């Protein structure tokens, strides 16, 4: 198959746009892993929930995720109140009730208003984000926080189990039918032989803006530094009053928001099913693993590479594009394995 210039450019554009989304997910995965040691497999469900929640709002139905948010809010409130039962103050109880019980009610109200008054697309996007983002910290409270001291491996098994449960719930809420959402920008830019869709531009711009915002957050703000400190030295962070639970909340909120945003961005370009998120997330994973689960720049760069490989593979051997993408992991693991010293003591883990 010969590739002419215009096809090449389309493929490169596709690759970069998809790669940008994988990159966002990879960044979120690295944040969560370094701060909490959790390998967040269910980020794929945040992707799917984000996209399908927006699609439901567009068709004017109340998305099932609103109910899920409420249930998780109640569970999270129960877990938090139980964990702090001995040292609870009026203020902390009020804060817990507000963030875990009141918030879902407010969000549900927003969702209803949004459907009722046919809100503009941007508002729907924001409401979809508001529905999915709090699930991150709620799930952290219910699932991960009670076992914060467990090994990376046990936390990973828990993550996979959570993925399974959330995917099943996705099927209950959204059915097996796929959905697409409206494009966020309907224009098309024409530069020589190259047609760039408005959505592509939105994706790349949003990604770049997010990367800059994350950079500023981690480098310039005290909370960002606190997250980094927890990632570097958990005990050291606790000794300066940085609570691992607070950092866990921030990291999971970031991850759920980024996941949902990724889903919203990609669902204007491809149909999303309840189980598509997992495959998208896996590509973010491959990128994060290439970066050793700790390096942000390496993860972001590999995400673009993965997007390009996928885009060219889907042109030449579309049936095997997933396989080809996952095979990228082999040389990387080989290279990492080669560089790892023979003695690796993880007995204490």
């Amino acid at each position: 198959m010969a590739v002419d210039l215009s096809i090449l450019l389309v493929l490169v554009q596709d690759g970069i746009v998809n790669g940008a989304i994988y990159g966002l997910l990879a960044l979120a995965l690295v944040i969560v892993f370094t701060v909490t040691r959790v390998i967040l497999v269910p980020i794929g469900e945040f992707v799917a929930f984000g996209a399908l929640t927006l699609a439901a709002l567009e068709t004017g139905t109340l998305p099932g995720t609103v109910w899920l948010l409420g249930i998780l809010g109640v569970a999270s409130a129960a877990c938090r109140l139980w964990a702090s039962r001995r040292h609870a103050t009026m203020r902390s109880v009020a804060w817990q009730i507000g963030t875990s019980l009141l918030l879902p009610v407010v969000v549900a109200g927003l969702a209803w208003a949004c459907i009722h008054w046919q809100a503009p697309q941007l508002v729907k996007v924001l409401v979809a984000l508001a529905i999915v983002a709090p699930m991150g910290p709620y799930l952290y409270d219910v699932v991960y926080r009670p076992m914060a001291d467990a090994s990376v491996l046990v936390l990973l098994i828990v993550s996979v189990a959570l993925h399974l449960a959330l995917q099943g719930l996705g099927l209950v809420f959204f059915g097996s039918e796929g959905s697409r959402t409206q494009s966020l920008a309907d224009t098309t830019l024409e530069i020589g032989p190259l047609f760039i869709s408005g959505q592509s531009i939105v994706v790349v711009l949003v990604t770049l803006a997010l990367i800059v915002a994350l950079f500023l957050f981690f480098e310039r703000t005290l909370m960002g530094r606190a997250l980094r400190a927890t990632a570097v030295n958990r005990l050291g962070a606790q000794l300066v009053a940085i609570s691992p639970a607070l950092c866990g909340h921030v990291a999971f909120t970031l991850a759920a928001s980024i996941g949902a945003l990724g889903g919203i961005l990609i669902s204007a370009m491809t149909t999303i099913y309840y189980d598509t998120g997992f495959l998208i997330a896996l590509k973010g994973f491959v990128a994060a693993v290439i970066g050793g689960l700790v390096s942000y720049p390496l993860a972001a760069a590999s995400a673009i590479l993965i997007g390009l490989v996928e885009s060219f593979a889907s042109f030449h051997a579309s049936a095997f594009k997933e396989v080809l993408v996952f095979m990228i992991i082999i040389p990387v693991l080989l290279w990492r394995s080669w560089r790892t010293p023979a003695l690796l003591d993880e007995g204490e883990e």
Partner: protein
Amino acid sequence: MSAAHRAVALLLLALAILAPLLPGFPPFWVTLLSYIGLSALVALGLVVLVGVAGLTSFGQAMFVGFGAYTTAILTTRYGFSPWATLPVALVVSGLLAWGIGAITLRLKGHYLAIATIAWNVSFFYLAGNLDFFQRNDGISGIPAITLFGIDFARSMNFYWLVLACVVLAILLTRNLLDSRAGRAVRALRGGALAAESFGVNTFNARVLAFVYAGVLAGLSGWLYAHLQRAVNPSPFGINMSIDYLLMAVAGGVHNIGGALLGAAIVTLLRDQLQTLLPWLLNAQGNFETIVFGGLLILILQFSPQGLWPHLMKLVSRLLPRPAEAPVPPISEAPPLPLRAQPARGAEVLRASELRKQFGGLVAVDNVGFTLNAGEVVGLIGPNGAGKSTTFNLLTGVLAATKGNVAFLGEEICGSTARHIATRGVARTFQHVKLVRGMSVLDNVALGAHLRGAAGPLSAALHLDRAEEARIFALAWQQLHRVGLAQCAHLVADDLSLGQQRLVEIARALCLDPVLLLLDEPAAGLRHLEKAALARLLDRLRQDGMTILLVEHDMDFVMNLTDRLVVMNFGAELAQGRPKDIQGNPAVIDAYLGTAA
């Protein structure tokens, strides 16, 4: 194996044989029992992988698929008989496991887990898209198994076949775990560092566990293909892999019985949920995944050991207390050939100009000393003086920034801990590193790893019994030597700290070392224990062994050692006989602090 385990195992076996023979036992349940058996085979592999070796795989369904597709393709396309494809299926799954393991098992455990997710998904797509696997339609027309006229297409006959395979797999697994190779795998949980210090190749031990789990999954797949008589990609996806993991974790990932229990519970539960949930939710789909996911999370949160230990506690309450296991008498004859020790007074080790830097911190700076055969040398100094770092440089745990270490004339600076162990250097650890949950005797026998040669295959088939007997005779001998024979059958982590330190010394002695390195052997020991330890070390010295010890108990050090090396601020402060060191003003200052 405890009495409770044995009782429950026999009871279950009797139940598994007798129940289907009852008149009126529904045929559907026979098939269900076969499925439980197939899953139990996979879960059994996960017990070895997850519970014993501490690794996790999300790709076991893929290995089941390797076994199933191997026999499906060979029987339908090339006319092989099912029995001829059995060894091929096992070899294919084993080889693929070996290849995947070789790539990832040098890395931290979670890389294997992530890689297996990616590969399982890839396999699923490949099988669904390649003509070779006949895509999503799958391969049908797989012949049934027959043997001596018995037709295993009949569900009852097939069940007997599955049951035989499960019993065989249990026996093989038990034999394997109770062997030199099995102890090496179990040692992984005590930390790779300790295992490597006794010559265990921890990478190979991990690969062994992974391949074993892969082969058992392959066997399950071979059976599955001939039970269903057709294969397609759907039962080999990632969700099924997670189900297998759920079985192992729910049942109890540290026990063989847990695998069976988990397989039974999850298989039965799925069967019930598959009809119940769609009815409850009023929709079609695999909703049992929601329950399974939630269940797995709850088990890991509240009972990470699974259900089997709870069952055992219940059963052992019903059984009479078991009799104490016997302690064999002391024997003097060496059960295994000894290595030639250097002549008394000959130079055993020479460290020169050792330096170790961590970032801006110089932990060890230009340290040098020699050790001669048959002498006990103490390495002392205040906290943070660099003693432990020096120790780690000698044993290959850390790589020196600069300097040399010659052991019996061979340069060992930069060698691995494992290589240094083969040369005859044994050690103990400041923070005791025994394998938790393993008996004292097995822990000590681990020290004899380099003195045996039996591989996993001979172990599984019990061809290693003569060598095992010699290894355990040796372990008993060393336990008598340190005075802990009466504790041999206890679980190592139940001992007091002092006793655990002695177990470590017994383990080190099993290596038949030329040089024994002891990291704070007297810390945490009571007065009488210290006196006994001093006598033991003195006896070893008389036998010609060379000993280097880091120790803070000055009473102990001053009375025992022939020579002292004193360190302070990473550098050498003084060397000499204990008497001279005690009167050395610089040393007194370093310990009590200069009057600031």
